[in-house]
């Protein structure tokens, strides 16, 4: 693990040369992919870091998404808008994420979890469009910060009661009194806000709408998964108490997902639409996670990876439209099949990936979550049915409004798209549709 960390840290020294960083990020992700051994439960241990199949999937996702986001932020380099600082913050964020997913200590994990907020904030506020318009920074910072302060207290309590903070070491909390329930709620609350769960999701659309493309891609692609990862790490400690609360999280996840999907159908700003459907997907992930079944857990991991790629790809596409037309509004940026016909392929492929059409990762994961949730209670069929139907409907809405229709211009012209853009979208789509043939790389299914 240390070799990757040092390699990324050294890469920060080359932040002055954009092409070097861009290239080596992909080299590093390839090198990391070679570690796909799935030895024992924990492997590559050392220096308080270790790897699990879960960490492997998410670290790979972080390398991949950060590499692609650097690739798509070519405008920053072209306009020389502090490109060196931009790359530095991206790489710093990557290091934070690497560490977050691989440390074996709860406190260390918390520190990294909070640390990843700072470069994200600077990326969004520094290179974003007009973040002060919706107070994006304020919402993101304070929502996640205040939600995670109780988590710190819980970790200290864990140390004093359990005696150790290494993941897997402290004993399960077996009491059911008020104190333990409060302990449990405070621990998972931070991750629920990060996920984001329905009632605490309002920071996500605000942050996404005004963020630059790299910020959006990393935020949607990896940072939301921090929430899921945290829940998976915390849950084994509290699984006894969790059984009494599953109904709450599953209901919030599914009902919240349905309500947010209905909101998607009314969205006009394309980035806001993609942000809202992230909330819907993560609601389903939350439901799958909290049921504590094996299929639920692996299903949510698969959906997390799939959603990371899909969302990130769609943000990339939205940015390509923005760079050419100058607006995020779908009222003006429509009729894109006339304007950028080749991109229509990628819009379509990523949209159907988003709604979970086979053979994508999203489909496999959703099937697994469906099984686990319906196994937990048949009543969820209603909510899940509506959720899946609405996800198809808002995807079709997004695709149809942006692609079909008239594009007003006196010119009979089209924009072919740049090769770099095609490469980025191909690299988003390839894992999404191809990994399903060897899904055991992501799920630990022997």
């Amino acid at each position, binding site marked *: 693990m240390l070799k990757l960390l040092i390699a990324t840290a050294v890469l920060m*020294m*080359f*932040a*002055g*040369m954009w*092409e*070097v960083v861009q290239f080596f990020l992909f080299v590093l992700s390839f090198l990391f992919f070679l570690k796909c051994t799935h030895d024992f439960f924990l492997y590559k241990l050392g220096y308080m870091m270790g790897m699990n199949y879960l960490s492997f999937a998410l670290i790979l996702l972080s390398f991949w998404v950060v590499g692609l986001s650097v690739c798509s932020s070519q405008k920053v380099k*072209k*306009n*020389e*808008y*502090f*490109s*060196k*600082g*931009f790359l530095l913050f991206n790489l710093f964020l990557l290091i934070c994420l690497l560490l977050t997913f691989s440390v074996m200590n709860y406190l260390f994990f918390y520190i990294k979890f909070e640390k990843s907020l700072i470069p994200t*904030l*600077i990326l969004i*506020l*520094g*290179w974003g*469009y*007009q*973040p*002060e*318009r919706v*107070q994006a*920074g*304020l919402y993101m*910072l304070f929502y996640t910060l205040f939600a995670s302060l109780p988590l710190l207290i819980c970790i200290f309590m864990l140390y004093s009661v359990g005696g150790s903070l290494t993941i897997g070491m402290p004993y399960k909390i077996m009491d059911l009194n008020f104190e333990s329930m409060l302990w449990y709620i405070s621990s998972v609350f931070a991750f629920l806000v990060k996920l984001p769960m329905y009632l605490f999701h309002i920071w996500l659309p605000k942050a996404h709408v005004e963020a630059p493309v790299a910020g959006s891609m990393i935020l949607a692609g990896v940072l939301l998964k921090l929430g899921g990862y945290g829940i998976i790490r915390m849950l084994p400690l509290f699984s006894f108490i969790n059984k009494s609360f599953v109904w709450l999280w599953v209901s919030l996840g599914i009902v919240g997902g349905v309500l947010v999907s209905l909101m998607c159908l009314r969205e*006009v*700003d394309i980035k806001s639409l993609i942000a809202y459907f992230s909330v819907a997907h993560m609601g389903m992930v939350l439901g799958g996670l909290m049921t504590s079944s094996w299929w639920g857990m692996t299903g949510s991991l698969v959906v997390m990876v799939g959603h990371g790629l899909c969302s990130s790809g769609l943000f990339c596409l939205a940015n390509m439209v923005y760079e*050419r*037309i*100058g*607006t995020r*509004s*779908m*009222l*003006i940026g*429509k*009729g894109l099949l006339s304007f950028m016909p080749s991109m229509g392929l990628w819009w379509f492929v990523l949209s159907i990936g988003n709604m979970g059409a086979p053979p994508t990762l999203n489909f496999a994961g959703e099937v697994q979550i469906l099984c686990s949730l319906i196994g937990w209670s048949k009543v969820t069929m209603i909510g899940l049915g509506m959720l899946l139907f609405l996800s198809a409907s808002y995807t079709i809405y997004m695709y149809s409004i942006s692609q079909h*229709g*008239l*594009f*007003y*211009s*006196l*010119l*009979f*012209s*089209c*924009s*072919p798209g*740049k090769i770099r853009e095609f490469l980025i979208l191909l690299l988003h789509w390839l894992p999404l549709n191809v990994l399903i043939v060897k899904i055991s790389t992501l799920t630990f299914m022997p």
Partner: protein
Amino acid sequence: MLYIIRASVRTFVECRTSKFSTRQSLCRFAGLGWTTRGVSSSTKKYKRQKDPARQFPELEDRSDDHYRKIKHVNPYQRTYDILTSDVKNFYKSVKSKINRGEPQESRGSSMDSRNRPEKIWPSYCDVLVVGGGVMGSSVAYHLKERALQGLNVVVVEHDSTYKKASTVLSVGGIRQQFSVPENIQLSMYGVEFLRKSKSLLAVEGMDPPDIQFNPHGYLTLASEAGIQQLIENYNLQREMGAKVDFLSAVKLKQRFPWLNTDGVEAGVIGLENEGWFDPWSLLFSLKRKAVSLGAQYVTGKVTGLNSELQDEMILEGVAMSNIRHIKSAEVTLPNGEKHSINFSILVVAAGAWSSEVGHLVGIGDGDGIMSFPVPVEPRKRYVYCVHAPNGPGLNSPLVIDPNGTYFRREGLGGLYLCGQSPKEVNEPSIDNLEVDYEYFEDEVWPTIAHRVPSFENLKLHTSWAGYYDYNTFDQNGIVGLHPLFSNMFLTTGFSGHGIQQAPGVGRAVMECILQGEYCTINLERLGFDRIIANTPLFEKNIV
């Protein structure tokens, strides 16, 4: 590896040829903060030279034009500024909400600009409208009404008191008696809009708008020379659905006994949907409604436009496209500050000064298609308000004499507005808006006194002058995209009939932007292309 070697070789060469100093090259090589803040070569910026004679008017420093000062240069500084001002504004808004419940004396102090949350400068918007007169406000209103929160519309107006705007100095007439079908259709929609304005432009909690539409019609008189043209125009108007009637000289005398039909063969009167209204009220209602729907009006002058060549577009039949996309505008506020606004679509509704805005992107300064400037210039026109105690009564329409002089009733106290468009050779200078009384004595009074004998003993009550956004090419409006810019709409050059066509043009531009084509009235013939192809669309005037 190869890259590093190449970079070192390049640095070495630069040092030797001393293109940059040694320190700079080494800094660049090591990747330490030496960044050139230049922009790529395909971005061109045209800046208007400051013309000392054309300073825009002094305005009092209004406290609500105070925008948040956030430096947009350094991202770290920007992050810090945004976070601190967000927190400050949150605190201010909470404080002002708390203070609202407190007694009178503290309430007064809590609402001043120090404690109110600061306004944010709209540095990114979807549609930027240059010019806040009736045309710009109509475009903003129609866009916001259809798109609601879906579009961010900003209107830049350099004089919020509208001292020199053509809109408020207009006589406010509306007629369907044109010879170009598009003009007839636009005016017909204009009347429909005026009739529905009480409900369309009503803002909750405020008085409904009162456009004061007087539907007394227009009376176009023709002498023997112009009778044929009058009949042709009349037939076209009837075909298009205008409610007009043809009156011979005898009928004219019967209907309007005060009219002297000497030299007049016939006339066409508008029975319905023609008349006059209060243009200031229309402007104010449109603006108020647009603002209530979320459009933002900014007081400032557009002094620069940045465009970028879209070199990757593939045009039909052309290898390298020369289409430019305008990306941002530089706006100078009354207090001298300069800010920039990035937008997706630009709508030029600057009236008589539209040509200047065109020059900001080089329209008229280049070669080929760019050599054609926007052919709009300000032309001064006088309006005289006279008092005639025995003048025509309530049913008098707006009468247009064969030689172009017009008059209409104003109010119920015996006041009349009159005027005449001067001939080309007599065009008054546009330096100021001073009124020439000799013109009234020599040209206007004799004509109207001859046409209406009871005007012999009138007295000049008051007068004013205003600018026409005069289209020197064919005196009809220019509506549509410019061929070489993918996102610049022109809505100007209406040469005196802009006020009546404003709602129709606003709706047409909205349809282009939101629906991709003209849906209700097809204004393709009024596009900029006719200027390049030199096919003027003249109004066939009656003599």
